[in-house]
């Protein structure tokens, strides 16, 4: 087991180094990619600054709290885009051309190879940008250090990434049947558009049920809400436990679904 983990960690490191070398062959392009992300972050900050010039709270979140939330979402989203988005996006093309055969033949776990083959280093700085935004927000808030909250944040942050990854894996697996799956990007956009706002906006007639649906049935709202909440707002152990359980469950379900999907793969051109 330990040897297996070490082997995969080594392989992951190798793949990451290889893609970094490829990325660095076009340094200018890399810099532009990073500036796009910086620009996007600047736009988000400008948007919320404009909004907070007109109001003091959004769904009960004060300005520094809200910016912490935005930073948290930015970091999680950046991590997912760096590690998995490109890979998953290419999966449909692998199915369509039959090139998936080559990946299946390798003596490595298919899911690992499909989802971790390449790293998109251009979005990796998003993690740092998100972290910077979170730190600035904490300073503005006058936050006092609390080891318990930091530990809970680390755990729920990892869970958020795991939940997001599982969703993406399930969306990707659908490509086996759909062949062309440009909607994956749309799905991801939808996914992130649900995760990018605080859960508190789902209140009032009708929408409260929707909020509960996306917390307990399709738990997208846990991804960035819970880590941000345990850090700057209420510390709810029940919610943390639920998030951990959901993360474990969704990883398992998505793996089973991916394997089920692979059985339907017909190896198009060979």
């Amino acid at each position, binding site marked *: 087991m330990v040897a297996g983990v070490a082997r995969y960690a080594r392989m992951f490191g190798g793949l990451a180094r290889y893609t970094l070398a490829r990325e660095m062959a076009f340094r200018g392009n890399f810099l532009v990619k990073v*500036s*796009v992300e910086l620009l996007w972050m600047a*736009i988000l900050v400008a948007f919320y600054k404009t909004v907070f010039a007109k109001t003091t709270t959004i769904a009960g979140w004060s300005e520094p709290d809200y910016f912490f939330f935005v930073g948290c979402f930015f970091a999680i989203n950046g991590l997912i885009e760096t590690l998995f988005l490109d890979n998953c996006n290419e999966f449909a093309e692998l199915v369509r051309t039959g090139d998936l055969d080559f990946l299946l033949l390798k003596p490595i776990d298919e899911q690992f190879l499909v989802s971790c083959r390449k790293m998109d280093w251009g979005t990796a700085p998003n993690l740092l940008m998100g972290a910077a935004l979170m730190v600035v927000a904490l300073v503005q808030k006058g936050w006092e250090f609390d080891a318990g909250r930091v530990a809970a944040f680390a755990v729920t942050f990892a869970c958020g990434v795991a939940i997001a990854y599982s969703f993406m894996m399930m969306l990707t697996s659908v490509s086996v049947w759909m062949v062309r799956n440009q909607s994956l990007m749309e799905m991801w956009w939808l996914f992130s558009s649900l995760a990018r706002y605080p859960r508190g906006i789902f209140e009032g007639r009708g929408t409260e049920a929707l909020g509960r649906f996306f917390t307990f049935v399709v738990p997208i709202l846990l991804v960035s809400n819970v880590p941000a909440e345990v850090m700057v707002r209420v510390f709810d152990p029940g919610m943390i436990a639920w998030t951990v359980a959901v993360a474990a469950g969704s990883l398992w379900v998505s793996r089973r679904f991916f394997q089920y999907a692979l059985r339907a793969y017909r190896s198009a051109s060979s």
Partner: protein
Amino acid sequence: MTPPDVAFTLAPPPPGSLHALVKYARIFRVALIERMTYRGDFLIGTVLRFLPIVTTILLWRAIYQGSGQGELGGFKYREMIAYLLLTNISRMFSSMPKLAAGIAQEVREGTLKRYLIQPLDLLGFLFASRVAHKVAYVSMSFLPYAALFYLCRGYFDGFPDGLQMLAYAVSLILAFVVGFYFEASVGMVGFWFLEVTSVLYIVMTLNFFISGHMLPLDLLPQPWSTLLKLLPFQYMAYFPAVVFQGKIRGAELAFHLGLELFWAVAFAVLARTLYRTGLKRYSAFGG
């Protein structure tokens, strides 16, 4: 899935003055068929695009509730939601996915030369196929949009009068032309820089904000609000929406429609000029 074979249905084009028109009409037809081949993916994509609208509405509701005010930047809550819904219609006309990247790719890979040896104009070809894509998109998403606007009818004060509706239609068509030639001009940059994808991302990301797609430009502090209203980007999202809402009327409306037309022509001229100048540098790489 194999796309339906269209080659057999095409007879040689008749000679005469209709020649060019028939040619571009056929390009339109082929592009439409290509667009409809993967209908499932296309339909899911269209439907899913609506779901973020729900969260946007909820976010703005929370913002208005938090502020305790009925009006922000001259927009009441209902008007704000109506505005954000209407920018989706504006973007439906003005957004040009993959246009600039496509042009740059033709330059980089050398496939551009087919436009040079065939009696076919690059911009004309792209324009005809883009109109087809838009027709397919608008007709496929008509029902979902109609349903959405019906569900959200509470946010609207009914339809504007005939003249305003006409102005709205004109502003949307011009939004398409501005969007097309703007993005085509960006794509022409590919003659000078082989890799433009990243530059494109910067332009498009910025455009998302300065076109008023995220929030009405009136909410921004001065001088940004006035400045952004002078730039051509507002015509791709902000302007058609506020025309529909009747926030711009009379002389101001006529002035802005004129300015929109000016930008449409200006970008068309720019794209043509860049294309002509670019061709002089073009070295037809690839096989």
